[in-house]
């Protein structure tokens, strides 16, 4: 040891900044189909390898390879493709609404549609979802009304959240979609608690939750993993690693040193890392984890490796902190393109069908939008401000009645 050596602080630095050329040539992308699919009751200790791996099913030609390739009929795949396309078109259209001043805020999931859609397909309808703000695809995959979603975004007279929430902070009880919080990560231990309750009651339903890779640094990530491990809660915990947390690359969440799936190891939970832009792989791993949970074999942490193809939100301009060419160079492609290619390869889809579907969905979103707008937009508040004092408590207490009266209602 050389005691006179001076210490220095390491500050993570992303591979490329604006003005630099992103270079993914050193990125290790394992071939599709190279990994075994372990039994769902495998011991967590036997699964460490999956935390450093990348489970992939679709190869470069769009063929499904290896043990993880799930058995899904073509119609279901087409439904998945449709839900992803619908999600993207919906996002694009709502962004325009925000730009037109019809709502205050919007968050897209562009490039990450496979995460929410394939996972919704892999879970059962009764399973309870505790999402972050970037899984609108879950609602769309579960067939929720776009008009209802738009009305929330517009905070209009049909907004089921009574104008109270920021746009996109949906809550849809009948679809098992838990109220989105603006506070990062809080839903994670809540999902574990829900799953614990389900287990206490001898139910068969499991829970699933999502956070971004940046959010793994929050305490609730640790709480969720600890409680899930201790009580072996039937829950699927997902980390969507889209490599960015607003302007910060994943290195500021620890991504320079280990994968996010590896976090699971220390809790004795399987950590499965999957190509998040590969619909089939996402579906297969989620199904595996759900089955594991349902068989009382405990929780799973899934890292979905993807890329945030667009801005963080409408308040953000990513050209300020990352090269604009980065998305195009990102080697894992686009989830919609990749599933389309797979279906075409199977002979179950065609370019013409694709164009037709895109047009159909576009028309549908436009029509829905027209209906939603007919109930108003942000400038047309949803209801009387009187409702502002409701639901703080189950019953409006006297002091809130007095304040309501003070307001003139």
């Amino acid at each position, binding site marked *: 040891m050389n005691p006179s050596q001076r210490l220095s602080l390491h500050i993570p630095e992303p591979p490329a900044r604006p003005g630099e050329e992103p270079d993914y040539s050193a990125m290790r992308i394992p071939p599709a189909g190279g990994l075994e699919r372990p039994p769902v009751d495998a011991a967590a200790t036997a699964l460490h390898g999956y935390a450093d791996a990348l489970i992939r099913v679709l190869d470069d030609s769009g063929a499904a390879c290896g043990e993880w390739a799930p058995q899904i009929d073509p119609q279901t795949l087409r439904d998945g493709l449709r839900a992803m396309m619908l999600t993207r078109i919906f996002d694009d259209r709502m962004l325009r609404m925000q730009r037109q001043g019809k709502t205050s805020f919007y968050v897209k999931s562009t490039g990450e549609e496979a995460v929410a859609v394939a996972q919704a397909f892999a879970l059962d309808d009764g399973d309870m979802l505790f999402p972050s703000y970037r899984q609108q695809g879950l609602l769309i995959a579960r067939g929720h009304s776009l008009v209802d979603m738009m009305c929330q975004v517009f905070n209009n007279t049909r907004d089921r959240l009574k104008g109270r929430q920021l746009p996109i902070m949906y809550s849809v009880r009948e679809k098992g979609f838990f109220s989105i919080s603006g506070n990062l990560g809080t839903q994670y231990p809540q999902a574990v*608690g829900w799953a614990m309750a389900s287990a206490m009651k001898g139910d068969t339903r499991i829970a699933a939750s999502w956070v971004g890779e940046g959010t793994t640094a929050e305490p609730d990530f640790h709480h969720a993993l600890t409680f899930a491990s201790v009580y072996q809660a039937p829950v699927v915990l997902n980390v969507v690693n889209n490599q960015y947390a607003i302007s910060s690359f994943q290195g500021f969440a620890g991504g320079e040193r280990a994968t996010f799936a590896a976090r699971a190891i220390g809790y004795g939970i399987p950590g499965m890392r999957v190509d998040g832009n590969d619909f089939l792989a996402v579906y297969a791993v989620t199904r595996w984890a759900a089955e594991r949970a349902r068989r009382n074999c405990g929780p799973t942490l899934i890292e979905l490796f993807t890329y945030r193809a667009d801005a963080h939100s409408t308040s953000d301009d990513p050209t300020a902190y990352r090269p604009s060419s980065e998305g195009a160079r990102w080697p894992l492609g686009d989830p919609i393109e990749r599933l389309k290619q797979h279906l075409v390869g199977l002979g179950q889809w065609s370019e013409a069908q694709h164009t037709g579907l895109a047009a159909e969905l576009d028309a549908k979103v436009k029509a829905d939008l027209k209906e939603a707008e007919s109930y108003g937009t942000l400038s047309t508040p949803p209801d009387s401000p009187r409702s502002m004092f409701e639901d703080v408590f189950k019953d409006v207490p006297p002091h809130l009645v007095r304040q309501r009266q003070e307001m003139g209602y």
Partner: protein
Amino acid sequence: MSTMNMIQAINSALDVMLDRDDDVVIFGEDVGYFGGVFRCTAGLQKKYGKTRVFDTPIAEGGILGTAIGMGVYGLRPVAEIQFADYIYPAFDQLVSEAARLRYRSGGEFWAPITVRAPCGGGIFGGQTHSQSPEGVFTHVCGLKTVMPSNPYDAKGLLIAAIEDDDPVIFFEPKRIYNGPFDGHHDKPLVPWARHPQGEVPDGHYRVELGKAAIARPGSEVTVLAYGTMVHVCLAAVEESGIDGEVIDLRSLLPIDIDSIVESVKKTGRCVIVHEATRTSGFGAELSAQVQEHCFYHLEAPIQRVTGWDTPYPHAFEWEYFPGPQRVTRALTAVMEG
């Protein structure tokens, strides 16, 4: 009817609710096999099984985060925070989640959780086993905050809290677990067995949240207190010879402002007493509301008697604790003022 101290009364409330409602579950640090460091959950795991009453990791935020999830599922979780001083790591789950869930979801989801937390000093617990943080929770819309002063109320309020569909923070003044401590630390403690409110029904009953009790009727000055301080104020009223009306608030939010206003309009004077630190403590809100409602009836400035604005100092516990002498001084001042 049995004679119970406050620990037994709390245990009885939990027992009654575990028995009546399969959806009630109880958990927290050391509450399972061991029965809690203050023994409030003693015997319950044995009686109701390990999945109804169980230990948790030491993570207050995780305890309340999972409790919310259980509440969303449809259970009625009762979580213990071992000392109120350790509730802060769970602050975000309480403030941003439990409190706002019903509102933000337009009434679709809610968290009917009860959070029990022993609070207050006078037990030589030092700065991290003596705090009274109730004030900050009353600033959070969507939480109910309760603090009983005796075994009868403790059981009835705790049952009401568990049955309530809103999140309730239930503070237990640990200094009066065993008897109605009145601040005379140099005198022997009277046990609850010799106090009328140590008589507690064995079965189910509720003490409504949001209703104060008149602990002692009086005509000259209204004394607002809760928890341990109720007994301190009763002692001070007796010792001062001033005919104070002591109101035991029991519930801080919702607050029974009508009873308070009625009393102050009658007496024209008001002293507010709490153990928590003064600045921005709940006494400030009480003072503001009293003067808003009773301005033209007040004959002297409202006085606050509180813990000093310092952490709870271990060796100077009794200089810190707002005991009967300080309350008496305030009573005298408000009568003169």
